[in-house]
């Protein structure tokens, strides 16, 4: 159990602000967590909490100004572009918006072949792999010749998942991968995430604003607020018996789809806010 795939250790991310002598914007302020192989770590928070920035920092897309991100014990936070490229087979991504995460002018096959050829996989092997990938995400094998705009939101997200799986990574950063989808599509895509994890043992860093989604999928959950993690622990612990007042407020704010239960939750929330004030 001590084995750690990814360790985020006291990470700080500052974004420079336009204009001379302006103080940079601190998006992450000393954030720490870890992910074990095959585990899903849920990252929940509201907009501006820094949850997406943490995901991007792990991917090397955000400037890490302090702390370390260790992958299999090696610090990957300040890697050069060419060293980072070698990590592409280890850490992958699925983004939120299935409409902008796929280049509209490339066919599905071209999109899926891209990460493979970037790692010098032979063209013929790559094409064979594309068929496997489409099968894994339950898309018809003739989908390869079509353009992204011919697919629905849920199908596009399956394509994005297939692209992430192409190099058989150990970790996939999922940045709000189901929040642009309809309820029933969302459920099906989540099931796919779970199925792939059970089969391949890939680990997920699962970023979402939706508590229900995070609870459903995550082994452990971190709650973020204003660039910091305010609560972090086992999923059932954090989501059922939250300790931190912000987490409690967050959980009570989400309306339950049951009129009677929601009336009780509303009353509880009013009480909590009255106590807090």
């Amino acid at each position, binding site marked *: *159990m001590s*084995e750690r795939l990814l360790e985020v250790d006291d990470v700080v991310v500052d974004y420079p602000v336009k204009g001379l002598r302006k103080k940079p914007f601190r998006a992450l302020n000393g954030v720490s967590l870890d992910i*074990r192989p*095959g*585990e*899903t770590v849920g990252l929940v928070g*509201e*907009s501006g909490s820094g949850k997406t920035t943490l995901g991007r920092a792990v991917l*090397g*897309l955000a400037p890490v100004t302090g702390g370390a991100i260790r992958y299999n014990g090696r610090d990957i936070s300040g890697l050069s572009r060419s060293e*980072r*490229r070698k990590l*592409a*087979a280890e850490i992958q991504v699925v*983004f939120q918006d299935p*409409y*902008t*995460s*796929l280049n*509209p*002018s*490339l066919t599905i096959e071209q999109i899926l072949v*891209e*990460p493979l050829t*970037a790692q010098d996989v032979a063209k013929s092997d790559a094409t064979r792999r594309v068929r496997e990938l489409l099968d894994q995400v339950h898309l018809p094998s003739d989908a390869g010749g079509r353009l992204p*705009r011919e697919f629905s939101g849920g199908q596009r997200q399956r394509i994005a998942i297939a*692209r992430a799986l*192409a*190099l*058989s990574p*150990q970790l996939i950063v999922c940045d709000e991968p189901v929040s642009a989808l*309809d309820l*029933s599509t969302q*459920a099906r895509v989540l099931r796919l995430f779970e199925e792939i994890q059970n*089969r*391949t*043992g890939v*680990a997920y860093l699962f970023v979402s*604003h939706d*508590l*229900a989604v995070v*609870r459903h*999928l*995550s*082994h*452990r959950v971190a709650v973020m607020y204003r660039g910091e993690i305010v609560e972090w622990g*086992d*999923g*059932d612990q954090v*989501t*059922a018996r939250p300790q931190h007042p912000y987490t409690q407020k*967050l959980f009570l*704010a*989400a*309306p*339950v*789809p*049951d*009129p009677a*239960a929601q009336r009780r939750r509303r009353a509880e929330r009013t009480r909590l806010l009255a106590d807090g004030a």
Partner: protein
Amino acid sequence: MSESLSASLETPATAAAPKGLFRRLLKNPLGAASLGVLTLIVLTALLAPVLAPHDPDAASANDILASPSSNFLLGADGSGHDILSRLLYASRVSLAGAALALAVAAALGVTAGLVSGYYGRWFETASTWVTNLLMALPGVVALLAVRAAVGPSLWTTMAIFGVLLSPAFYRVVYTAVSGVRNELYVDAARVSGLRDPRIISRHILIVVRAPAIILAASIGSVAIAIQSGITFLGLGDPSVPTWGGMLNDAFANMYTAPLQLTWPSLAIGLTAISLTLLSNALRDELERSSRPKRRRGRRDAGTATVRHEPVLVHEDTEDTEDAPSGEILLDVQGLTVSYDQADGSAKTVVEDVSLTVRRGEVHGLIGESGSGKTQTAFAIMRLMPPGGQVAGSILFEGADLARLSAKEMTRLRGKKIAYIPQEPMSNIDPSFSIGSQLVEPMRVQLGLSKAEARDRALRLLARVGIPDPERTFNAYPHEVSGGMAQRVLIAGAVSCDPDLLIADEPTTALDVTVQAEVLDLLRDLQSDLNMGVILVTHNFGVVADLCDRVSVMRGGRIVETGAVQSIFDDPRHSYTQSLFEAILDDSRPRGPLETDVTAAASTQGASS
């Protein structure tokens, strides 16, 4: 010119699109015609030595201003040159000069635009400065200065003119590239381990290609015009025949041989117009083909048609005792909404929808994207996008809204029926202060004085929970947060005491803690003002929190409707049941990772 550019920019990955584009361009009447004229002009220029009947520089004093004849088909100019021969040779110089300027402009502008758009940083700042510097002088004035410095060399002048034109390419390319630089698919390519040159050739050049080709055709026309203008002013090399130089000669003899103005004018005009028309045709064809069918968020877009089936109605029972029993405020019967299509047909997005709203009642419309719920809401307010048609009846306070004139409808809106939109930030006019946007409808609809309306607006802002009403009143939309903006929109909606409130996903764009506050606010206002409410949403939690009644929509129709408790307790339609099954709120937490999964993972992960 444009073909060679497209060829140089072409990448193997996207060969499909431009090939089709050229074919489509030939089918477009304007495109084909302009392409034809340009080809003809270029051909005559190339074949000038074969076609020209005379030596363009041979002049004879006897033939000065000779009229058109079999010897001089178009006559002879003020120095006795054959006009036709000179025109043909001038085409070569004029076209080549314009092409040189275009090539220089494109090479500089596209390269600089790509680099500063993709990498940004200091290069971006420097390029912007140089661009501003180049655009600080009118092209003609700058060329005059250059001419004063380098003398009457056509090629140097045109090359420098290319430099002066390059900002146009720079801007277009820079805008396209910096727009795409942060697209998620470019990020995905980086994460996939692609090298920069490959990312640029696969993902960036594609977006640059179309606007650059369009611009090239249009800049070509500008280059022809300016080049002719400069030579017309007599600042060209007098030993080389050009269209502008011929125009100058003809202009000097305007009174004696007015017809001579026609030929160079025609050459300049035809070339410039053809290039511009070509640019337009290119744009039209590209827009037609690449219009992405991007659906944003949960806006209802296309609707799948569903077979007709009866609506499942949950009859009210004694269990639903706390349902409001006020008079019926809104009675919609058989509402159908359709949009006229370009091909003359109509596309139906809402079909045979019937629902009622009582005073003091909140009626939820729930469904997934494309179910027609937002379209139903817009139709009740008669605020559909252009081309929308309404059939059926919408009875509201004794009037059928489906049949009211536009003027009568305007009088009802805001005062009797109000609307709360989904996206707070895009629904406030960015150019006006928040206060003035609150005051304006109250003055129009309630006839309040400026001071009265201001007073009322401040009270409304306080009512919707804004901490410092005075400050928000004077603020501009970009100065407030999304949650605040939604409160302002709610204040605006209830400002004229409406009877019916239509809220279209009023909390979807908000964070969950803000959503809870806004839901509380809506509940308070609804009971204070005793309004009927139609609440469009995709969230069953919001329905459970706020609604008395709910109608489930799919494919433009209502499939099930009834009191909220009844539907939640006993969903009968298979579609409603499937929606409830997809809800994750009551699913069990996954629990901590089990060790044996970990063991399996470390062996399988690498091999799969």
